[in-house]
């Protein structure tokens, strides 16, 4: 990922555009044949995919069992609500912290590994968490899941906003998502992000420049797990329940696929593109045929074969190909800029 324009800004024009477009979604989503809950799902998965891509796209760390942290966040949100306090902020904090603790623990065991070994270790640990979720029936409800998780109101002291309707929840999740975007954009282009990118390009070189690579890998894994847990907490709230299936290898694979299809390796926004394409394809193609995954799978294969940089990569190279033509077509403008 090369340094994009506006990397130094806290809020970029692209962010404002995305935020504005997303803010209008509840006004028209029903009119195009979709439904408001899909918007909530897209935002939550987008946050999760961005958190995941901090590892894969920025630091180059293949975590193929990331569903574990999403799931732990979901369970933590529910369990905290039932057993400690039914407060939205505390429950989301618990989701973050529980996932960060699990991620931090796992990172201790895997951060000295690279490549395929790293990937396999992440899978192995995610399987442990998944089995725990299924087997500890008294805590997690096992296969039946944790039910009746409430959509708690957003309490601001002076006023509390009810989030039980899908539209209200959508706007709440949108705010969290945008905060996540701002934070991740800044992080990606901070010194920390630059070091992570350096580690992705050459771990050996980064170490010889004096960077304690293992500690960086632990830090970014923990951070990514925490944000995935936050997304998981929102997910538990959205679907009023938490199930072990999001922790399965199958679901962990989906976020990898979303990020790769969207182009997370070359673009900050790639993961969001991938989530939108995946979830809309699921609903639109899924309405026509049960075998929708076959068609999405074919799309995935086509992308890996012909455009491994994903949709965002295709857009980037399309732009690069068009740029000289556009420049040639508008000489007066260029002259005006010079003069």
């Amino acid at each position, binding site marked *: *990922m*090369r*340094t994009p324009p506006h*990397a*130094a*800004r806290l809020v970029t024009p692209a962010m404002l555009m995305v935020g504005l477009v997303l803010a209008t979604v509840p006004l028209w989503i029903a009119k195009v044949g979709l439904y408001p809950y899909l918007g909530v799902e897209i935002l939550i998965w987008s946050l999760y995919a961005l958190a995941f891509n901090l590892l894969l796209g920025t630091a180059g760390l293949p975590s193929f069992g990331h569903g574990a942290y999403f799931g732990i966040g979901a369970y933590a949100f529910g369990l905290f609500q039932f057993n400690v306090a039914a407060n939205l902020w505390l429950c989301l904090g618990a989701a973050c912290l529980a996932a960060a603790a699990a991620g931090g623990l796992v990172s201790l065991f895997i951060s000295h590994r690279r490549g395929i070994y790293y990937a396999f270790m992440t899978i192995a640990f995610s399987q442990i968490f998944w089995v725990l979720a299924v087997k500890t029936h008294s805590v997690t409800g096992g296969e039946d899941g944790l039910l009746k998780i409430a959509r708690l109101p957003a309490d601001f002291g002076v006023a509390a906003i009810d989030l039980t309707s899908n539209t209200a929840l959508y706007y709440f999740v949108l705010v969290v998502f945008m905060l996540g975007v701002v934070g991740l954009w*800044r*992080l990606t*282009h*901070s*010194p*920390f*992000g*630059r*070091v992570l*990118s*350096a580690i992705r*390009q*050459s771990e*050996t*070189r980064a*170490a*010889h*420049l*004096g*960077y*304690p*690579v293992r500690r*960086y890998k632990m*830090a970014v894994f923990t951070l990514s797990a925490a944000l995935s847990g936050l997304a998981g907490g929102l997910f538990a709230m959205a679907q009023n329940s938490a199930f072990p299936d999001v922790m399965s290898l199958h679901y962990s694979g989906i976020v990898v696929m979303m990020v790769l299809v969207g182009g997370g390796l070359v673009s900050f926004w790639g993961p969001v593109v991938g989530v939108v394409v995946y979830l809309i394809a699921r609903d639109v193609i899924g309405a026509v045929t049960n075998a929708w995954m076959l068609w999405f799978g074919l799309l995935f294969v086509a992308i890996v074969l012909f455009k491994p940089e994903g949709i965002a990569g295709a857009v980037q190279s399309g732009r690069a190909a068009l740029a000289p033509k556009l420049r040639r077509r508008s000489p007066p403008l260029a002259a005006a800029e010079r003069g």
Partner: protein
Amino acid sequence: MAMLEARDIHVRFGDRVVLEDISLAVEPGEFHGIMGPNGAGKTTFFNVLTGRVRPSRGTVRIGGEDVTGLSPHAIAARGVARSFQIMTLFDEFTARENVEVALPEFRARGFDGRRAAVGDPAFAAAARAVLAEVGLAEKAETVAKDLPYGDRRALEIAVALAQRPRVLCLDEPTSGLGLDGVTRLAALVAGLKGRLSIVAVEHDMEFLFGLADRISVIHWGQVVAHGLPAELRANPWVRRSNLGRLQ
């Protein structure tokens, strides 16, 4: 006191002895050349100095401090920079970004995720100064991957210099360079002499004999000869070997 001192370094991979009791001291500001045939153990010796390989026995001291067995990042943080025989630049970064990430002040803020690295004038100015020193001022914003070979070699040196090292280890700096490139590199290294200690493994004898203050010859994992360039020219081992083919 020697800036870099390796004493009785012994390295064994399995039952193969790669380095046998190598001792070597480099004074502050000295350019110390290391020569020897392929497979003599020169790169392994470098890997010991920079922490990639832990010696079976022996000690490495930097500025008097024992650093034997420390990890590469800990040794780098103590002022040892190295260039690689096989270039390992950060290919997606521009020349400036490559240099910035090597600056000690950048490293000090490495865990800072709250401020932007891009557009930080302190980093950019320091990086540009280093790039100017190696003749890459014009190419600061070129992506490393797109630089021609000679410029990549120069950038490799710039990245090492950006660390403001006390000891600079150069692993075959002239490899792959044409005559022009070697001349440019020689001028660059000549400018560094006296400012920091340099250890260079090199096959190009003219380059080494022209610049080095002292030279050690490593063969079969041992130092078989060392001394001033003039002394080595007369050394029977050097004269006998192909290495000594000098005008």
